[in-house]
């Protein structure tokens, strides 16, 4: 067995393969990171006597459309993981490409949303509402970008002859990360736009 494959297959004392355990520990640190940001947002919002209604400052239909895109990308990522378990490289590449395309579309819509805010003179520093909005969506956007880059890297690896034997577990790991990014948005969308 190759070094990479044996490293991944090595089961830790928890019963989880080391690669998967490492990814879950990384996600735990990411949970703490976003907990700090969201916690700060909640405390700031609760401590102010008034808070603008999100529907007056932000476009709910645009954000709902973006959520639709990200939820769809989670589905294509899950289908990619299913494809690799069936050793179907063609479908895996297709679903990885779709995930990358949908993630990019999410960032484009977010960029368009930012451009509208800038045109109306709303920048980070304008007020606490927009400070929170740009901070939370900005950090989430950086994570989406990191997920796109990771998926591009995994896609490039699928063209290696030994991918299914040695590197296929990377699809599961990048999938876990992508779903986590989706999970963060599932909470950010209602907190920022709906309530």
């Amino acid at each position, binding site marked *: 067995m190759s070094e990479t494959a044996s490293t991944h297959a090595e089961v830790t004392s928890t019963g989880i393969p080391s690669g998967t355990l490492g990814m879950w520990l990384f996600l735990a640190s990411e949970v703490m990171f976003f907990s700090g940001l969201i916690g700060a947002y909640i405390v700031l919002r*609760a401590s102010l006597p008034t808070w603008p209604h999100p529907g007056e400052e932000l476009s709910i239909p645009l954000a*709902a459309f973006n959520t639709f895109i990200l939820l769809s990308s989670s589905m294509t*990522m899950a289908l990619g993981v299913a494809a690799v378990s069936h050793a179907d490289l063609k479908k895996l590449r297709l679903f990885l490409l779709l995930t990358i395309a949908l993630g990019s579309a999410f960032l484009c819509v977010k960029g368009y949303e930012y451009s509208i805010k800038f045109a109306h003179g709303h920048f980070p520093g304008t007020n606490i509402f927009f400070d929170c909005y740009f901070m939370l969506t900005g950090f989430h956007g950086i994570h989406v970008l990191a997920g796109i880059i990771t998926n591009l890297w995994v896609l490039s690896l699928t063209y290696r002859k030994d991918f299914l034997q040695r590197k296929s577990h990377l699809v599961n790991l990048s999938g876990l990360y992508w779903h986590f990014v989706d999970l963060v948005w599932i*909470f950010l969308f209602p907190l920022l736009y709906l309530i």
Partner: protein
Amino acid sequence: MTTYKKYLLIWVWLIALLAAGTFISSLPISKTHAVLLILFISLTKAGLVCLFYMHMKSEKLVPIWVVAIFPFFLIGLAAALVLLGPLCFS
């Protein structure tokens, strides 16, 4: 049901819940009810993603669940602060 069909079905549920949450935010109901309903819907969506897309339904392992439960605690904190915040901070 094949894995592909199952994932498509979960996606349909996620989109339906997204539509429901967005629709509820536009209803003329009290803020308390809207917050509780919308956060409940978000928790359901997150649960579907965790259980099926992240395979936590089949991974019956304590360390993973410890990590996964934390966001649920956070969303409870969010609901409590948004609902009770004006009382706590005034």
